[in-house]
């Protein structure tokens, strides 16, 4: 009996609603945050990530009302990402009831932020999101401001060095978003995740590329990640969490199963 691998639906939030679409344009309203969060929790999601897509590009603070509503409603952990640039902003989100906060672009702009957050709240609260893409020379490097395609910038630091660095600063978990596979639904970037796994001693969560249950089996088995995050396949209903967990268990992956839902 050991630690279970985690299945983590990611919900994009804008103006208090769950939306889907490309990160910045053409958003389709997917519904009420609390009812979707409650549904995923009941179906056996191990954790939820809420990505506030309005927050980061414009530098707006996360609107906390929905964080409190989610915290009241669900009994599984959740993480809030987007727009958190300071200890004060993080504190407000955590006190509203989030279990973890995730920083991405602000950490690339001011890496001390990771240290400050870890000192203030403990490493277990501090997730660093990393957007990574393979450059033409074959090296994975990080990107910032990926919420807005027009503003996205490539940075000179390699993904492996960045992952090492943020751990030294106090990251308690890394979410690696492999941009090359994101949205294509052809599977996680197992090669890249396995490489990052070698330098990542804190929990590592795979993001980008999930399209079928087999992709989850592969990423747990071949990249040894601790969690797998996905959005579209869950929101669309293409993959249902109870069936996914049964498939993973059959493949020998340790997962948490929940009792069959009673209507």
């Amino acid at each position: 009996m050991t630690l279970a691998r985690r299945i983590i639906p990611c919900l994009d939030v804008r103006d208090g609603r769950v939306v889907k679409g490309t990160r910045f344009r053409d958003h389709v309203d997917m519904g009420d945050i609390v009812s979707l969060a409650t549904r995923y929790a009941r179906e056996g999601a191990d954790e939820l990530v809420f990505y506030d897509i309005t927050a980061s590009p414009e530098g707006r603070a996360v609107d906390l009302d929905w964080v409190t509503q989610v915290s009241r409603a669900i009994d599984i952990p959740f993480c809030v990402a987007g727009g958190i640039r300071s200890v004060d902003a993080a504190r407000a989100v955590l006190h509203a009831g989030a279990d973890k906060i995730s920083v991405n672009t602000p950490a690339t702009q001011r890496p001390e932020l990771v240290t400050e957050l870890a000192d203030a709240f403990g490493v277990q609260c501090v997730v660093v999101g990393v957007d990574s893409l393979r450059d033409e020379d074959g090296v994975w490097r990080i990107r910032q401001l990926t919420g807005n395609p027009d503003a996205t910038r490539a940075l000179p630091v390699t993904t492996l060095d960045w992952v090492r660095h943020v751990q030294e600063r106090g990251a308690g978990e890394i979410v690696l978003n492999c941009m090359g596979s994101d949205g294509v639904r052809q599977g996680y970037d197992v090669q890249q995740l396995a490489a990052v796994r070698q330098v990542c001693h804190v929990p590592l969560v795979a993001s980008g590329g999930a399209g079928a249950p087999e992709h989850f089996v592969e990423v747990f088995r071949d990249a040894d990640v601790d969690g797998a995050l996905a959005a579209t396949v869950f929101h669309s209903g293409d993959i249902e969490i109870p069936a996914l967990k049964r498939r993973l268990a059959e493949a020998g992956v340790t997962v948490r199963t929940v009792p069959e839902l009673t209507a």
Partner: protein
Amino acid sequence: MSLRVALVDSGGTNIGSVSYALERLGATARLTADRGDILAADRVVLPGVGAAGAAMRRLRELDLVEVLHEVHAPLLGVCLGMQLLFGRSAEDGGVQTLGLVPGSVEPIRADYGVRVPHMGWNALTELVDDPLLAGIGEGERAYFVHSYAAPVGPSTLAATTHGDTFTAVVRSGLRWGAQFHPERSAAVGARLLRNFLTEVDR
């Protein structure tokens, strides 16, 4: 439910979540650092997220160390709150903690390829028969997030394994502790909290 539940204002960031979890069970918890409130309560919950050194400093500043020793009602420490019940924590270079439960807290060893922090849903094993664990079965999973842990000892009611095997639930007299987060552990956590409210002093 008309129980008076005191939620000790230990400064941790999970105070809201614990309070909401109690609300979902129909209880109302009063967030307090007041001696009178705490000693008058039917149940006392000590939450906590963060580091042992800062948490103990805060309890001392609020004059709560002695108060917690005077509590006669059932007391439940959650996560760091559980770790504070022991006598000593190795965190922050070594911290003297409340000493309400025998034992001490050590760093989780990142041996055997396990990742630290221990983060996620792990199985409760070696369960001891206790009202706090009524209805919770061997192997059921709860949500853990921590980098320090208490070795298994005579007070351990349930264990979990992440590299080493350590204490997941502990009891000494009417003081209980859960290393995992019952407020974030779905049905298992809700059952533990409900047991704490309704079963432990029967």
